[in-house]
């Protein structure tokens, strides 16, 4: 009996050590996420977008470095990715939502799963970006849009709602293809329709007042800076 427990002791200490290392990196990821999030929040204030994006990309580099550290730690535990997965899941969903929002700001397009992995320095080893985490992150990203379009319109950018609406409608349609289980992700996705609805209403508000361009005439006069030219 004693010999067996001797061995258990070693194994438990080993996995305890792994957990401790993970915890420490995850705490740093959370702090970086907060910085990134705080930085991205300034898009609501119509500061010049280029400055925001540059600063944000700096934070992403930090986060990427941390994920590489995580992957390094996990390298010594082959086949145990999902054993510890719960320890960084929530932070990963957050970071996906942030980098996907940022990507949309930069390109007007959806950040693909492979791109997200690349941005976080993952995917080459066993340590990948779980699909459900990626999808949950997209749902969180969607939650940012209603506030964004409202503030863009207040800043005089009447074209933004249409663009966001197109993007969100496509995303929502794509999600509907999936057969989601009755779980956390499903609930988050069910919430996405409220974002869509709110964006529709904002679009309605500018459209009915004749403020929205019809999308055909690109590049109309606008005075509020560089945010409009991007997406």
């Amino acid at each position, binding site marked *: 009996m004693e010999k067996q427990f001797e061995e258990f002791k070693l194994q438990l200490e080993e996995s305890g050590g792994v957990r401790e290392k993970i915890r420490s990196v995850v705490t740093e990821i959370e*702090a970086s996420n907060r910085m990134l*999030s705080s930085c991205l*929040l300034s898009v609501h204030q119509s500061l010049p977008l280029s400055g925001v994006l540059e600063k944000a990309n700096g934070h992403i580099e930090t986060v990427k470095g941390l994920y590489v550290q995580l992957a390094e730690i996990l390298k010594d535990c082959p086949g145990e990715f999902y054993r510890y997965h719960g320890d960084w899941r929530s932070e990963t969903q957050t970071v996906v939502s942030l980098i996907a929002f940022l990507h949309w700001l930069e390109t007007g397009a959806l950040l693909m799963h492979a791109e997200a992995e690349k941005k976080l320095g993952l995917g080459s080893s066993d340590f990948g970006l779980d699909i459900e985490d990626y999808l949950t992150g997209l749902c969180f990203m969607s939650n940012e849009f209603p506030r964004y379009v*409202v*503030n863009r*319109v*207040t800043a005089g950018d009447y074209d933004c709602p249409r663009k966001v609406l197109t993007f969100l409608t496509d995303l929502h349609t794509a999600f509907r293809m999936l057969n989601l289980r009755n779980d956390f992700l499903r609930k988050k996705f069910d919430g996405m329709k409220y974002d869509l609805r709110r964006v529709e209403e904002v679009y309605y*508000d500018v459209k009915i007042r004749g*403020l929205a361009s019809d999308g055909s005439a690109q590049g109309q006069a606008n005075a509020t800076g560089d945010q409009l030219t991007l997406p």
Partner: protein
Amino acid sequence: MTTNSTMRDEFAKHADYLNSLNEKREKVVKASRDVTMNSKKVIFQVHRISKYNKDEVLLKAENDLVAVTNQFMSKLVKELQGTDFWKLRRAYTPGVQEYIEAATFCRFCKTGTLLNLSEINSSLLALSDKSIEPLQINVLDYLLGVADVTGELMRLAIGRISDGEIEYAQKICQFVRDLYRELIVIVPLMDDNAEMKKKMEVMLQSAIKIENACFSVHVRGSEYTPLLGTDNPDFSFFGVSDFE
């Protein structure tokens, strides 16, 4: 029996300690409740503001706040003197938070800035008996109070829009957003942040409410900008000034 009586002496000391601690706690709780109630009154006074009575209303609010400080905060400070402030924190934190809320609310309306913790703490120094360690509000209570003030600022912003003071509302909006952006980074560093996390959610909702109100005014104004032959939306129609 000796052991027995030694034990009795020991516990007699402990009994005294517990009794006086409890009594002090009770007094602090009562003083804190007074601070809360009277700080709330100051906040309501500030809300009586309108486009035209601003100075008068704020002057009264500031005087009321001074009265709260001198009458009720000083009582709290007195009860706390000589105690470890952290030990009884739970007994006085509600009052202190509400006081911070009232004080920062007044200051914002007066100057559009955030009243600093150091300013508050130096005003409290004056209340203390010089010989004993004075009460200094800690960062946590200050931040919890500041988080609450955003709710009042939201109410204020909606009212300002009704009064046609769109720019004022936008200034509030900017202020609340700034606070939120600063706090979001700090919250996880706070000692016991469950309460603060809840307040952050409320704060975000407040910010969104102000933003929606500003949006609504903006699109409505923009619809007629061409009609009125001007580049800038004309908000002079907002507010009830013109038919009074």
